[in-house]
């Protein structure tokens, strides 16, 4: 998805639409197209798109292809934990916006990006194959070119060998091939990171009526998130240790629904009460008044009626490439960084990378520079790395803070909930940052 968004972005800008782009992806859907039946129940693989990402999609002309299909905006979010000591309720009104985000199935995102690129007046060619090896001559860069002659063999180009025997020369190789990126391997980028001892169970569930709020409850083993998908469906992302994950995947559907409801409701601890610290008046001297949603009391999430898809399990890890770029190569998306799903940020960071890279490429072409030039690519890295690392650090911090059941720490977390709920500048800042409007988590 992230790679395709880069291609769409390049196609949409006058400075870059003349570039020759080769898309190397062995997914047959790229060649055959992605057929989406509106009657199908939703796929469990979804992404939460921030408003910033939505507007980027609109800019490149891809959002229009998405709109006919199921997607759900949500304007409220409630976050609490099992201790029952505090909760935070966010509302898009707090930042004068209509929504906090939009939940879309990945296949819908892929399809809309594919349609966007197919309909664009853009020279692209899809190679349904895999990258096998790559050689980066120290002197050369190139965006894909067909037509190899003996002169080019001395040129400053990257040479790629594909599994079907094709040989490509390119000025710039963009690795958008996910967390186990082959491009990253072949280019020799080192990574830092660790595996979380947690897996995520992902599935779609159905309610009796429409769910319009995003819910996240931190449990002792990991958070459970309930994300509205439209048509009475919601997506569940439940993080827990690997053994429990296996159990939950294999238990019967009825039992699974019971455990989900239990986890969202009374399981593991009590509900937070709104009046724990005197309705938040104690905080009113902090900020410019109590935000409107601070007065909305705690709500219990809607009951899950039945399971609507298969259950999938994924291991979670944090990984960050030490460098994103070198001559002829740039990494975007999960190839550069993977994060914990607890805030729905991962793919949004990836889209942010794609649009930043495409802008940097446009700026380079404006001054006639060679697009594979390392100094230019470093500009992209300098823009995205701090933002990505800041986000990763925050998410990792949350993950660690919530994985310990320790009295004083629980109180601290509760204080955090209350602060976020009742101190309006803080709440606005949090929403702004999570929505992608603010690049770094600082008060501005």
């Amino acid at each position: 998805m992230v790679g395709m968004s880069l291609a769409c972005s390049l196609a949409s800008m006058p400075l870059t639409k003349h570039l020759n782009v080769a898309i190397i992806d062995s997914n047959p859907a790229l060649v055959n197209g992605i057929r989406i039946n509106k009657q199908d129940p939703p796929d469990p693989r979804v992404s939460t798109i921030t408003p910033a990402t939505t507007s980027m999609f609109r800019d490149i002309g891809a959002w229009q292809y998405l709109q006919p299909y199921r997607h759900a905006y949500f304007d409220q979010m409630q976050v609490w934990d099992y201790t029952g000591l505090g909760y935070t309720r966010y509302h898009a009104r707090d930042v004068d916006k209509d929504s906090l985000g939009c939940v879309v199935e990945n296949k819908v995102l892929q399809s809309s990006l594919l349609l966007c690129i197919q309909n664009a007046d853009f020279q692209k060619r899809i190679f349904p194959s895999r990258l096998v090896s790559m050689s980066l001559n120290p002197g050369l860069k190139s965006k894909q070119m067909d037509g190899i002659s003996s002169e080019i063999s001395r040129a400053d180009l990257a040479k790629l060998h594909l599994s079907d025997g094709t040989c490509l020369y390119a000025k710039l190789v963009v690795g958008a091939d996910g967390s186990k990126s082959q491009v990253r391997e072949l280019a020799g980028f080192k990574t830092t990171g660790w595996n979380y001892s947690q897996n995520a169970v992902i599935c779609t569930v159905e309610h009796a009526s429409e769910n319009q709020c995003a819910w996240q409850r931190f449990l002792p083993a990991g958070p459970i998130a309930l994300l509205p998908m439209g048509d009475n469906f919601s997506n569940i992302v439940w993080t827990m240790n690997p053994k429990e994950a296996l159990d939950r995947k294999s238990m019967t559907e009825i039992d699974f629904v019971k455990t989900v409801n239990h986890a969202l409701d009374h399981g593991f601890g009590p509900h937070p009460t709104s009046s724990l610290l005197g309705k938040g008046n104690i905080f009113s001297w902090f900020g410019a008044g109590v935000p409107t949603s601070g007065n909305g009391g705690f709500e219990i999430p809607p009951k899950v009626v039945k399971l609507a898809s298969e259950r999938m399990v994924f291991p979670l890890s944090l990984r960050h490439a030490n460098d994103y770029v070198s001559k002829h190569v740039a990494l975007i998306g999960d190839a550069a960084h993977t994060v914990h799903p607890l805030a729905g940020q991962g793919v949004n960071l990836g889209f942010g990378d794609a649009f930043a890279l495409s802008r940097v490429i446009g700026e380079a072409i404006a001054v006639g520079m060679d697009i594979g030039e390392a100094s230019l690519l470093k500009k992209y890295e300098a823009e995205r790395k701090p933002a990505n690392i800041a986000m990763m650090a925050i998410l990792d911090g949350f993950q660690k803070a919530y994985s310990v059941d320790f009295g004083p720490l629980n109180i601290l977390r509760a204080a955090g909930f209350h602060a976020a709920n009742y101190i309006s500048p803080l709440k606005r800042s949090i929403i702004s940052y999570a929505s992608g409007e603010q690049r770094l988590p600082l008060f501005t």
Partner: protein
Amino acid sequence: MASKLLHRVRAVSARLKYSRTLSPTLAAFASSRLLSDVAPSASTSPAPQSSGSSDKFEHNAKSSSVRSSLKDPELAKFSAIADTWWDSGGPFKPLHLMNPTRLAFIRSTLCRHFGKDPSSARPFEGMKIVDVGCGGGILSEPLARMGASVTGVDAVDKNIKIARIHADLDPVTSTIEYCCTTAEKLVEEQRKFDAVISLEVIEHVADPAEFCQSLSALTIPEGALVISTINRSMRAYATAIVAAEYLLHWVKEMAGFVYNPLTGRWSLSDDVSVNFIAFGTKNSQ
């Protein structure tokens, strides 16, 4: 002291008044040269700004166009030098850092002057541009990528060889014509260009007045001329600024070039006190 300087500036400009309409430029730069004590050809000149050589215009190199006729041993020797010259993290790093900023200025002024579409990837399509003092081709190559038919000239043969090798690596830039020659020789050959660009050169020239005359002669009527230079002495700075302001009417647009040592970046600004780039046009006669 200021009035004495001004007097000398007037004297110089009077001498050149009837030569070309670009004479105010000549005066501006001539005065900076005549009145300054600093000989830019001294070893203090930072090599990167003069494209690697401070003895550019002391040679009377013969006009020769070096095409891809290099033999293998020569190729190997110059390839190594070319790699160093072109290494954006190497000894010529300041020059490479400065380049995008200069190109942004050139793109903006030339597009506006010639009515070209600034959002096009190749706005200079169909234009003939000469890069006087091209060095290793750091300016010529981006200009070629922007669509121009570029001729790069440099009086130092080594630079031309480096430029040729590097330009041949990319089909787009291999169309650049490189000649080891001087501006004066080009004038003798009656070459004409839509835009004449000479950056960081004039401070090394023995006779700036004559140099500017040559640059002007190479420009077609209603063509464009872009010059940049560095002020390296207080006196040169004072006189050049005074002169430029006094004779400002030829300069359509001038921008200062400012280096921020903390970020390591060049940017355009209104501060012309250190290094500046100027764009002017030749009126038809």
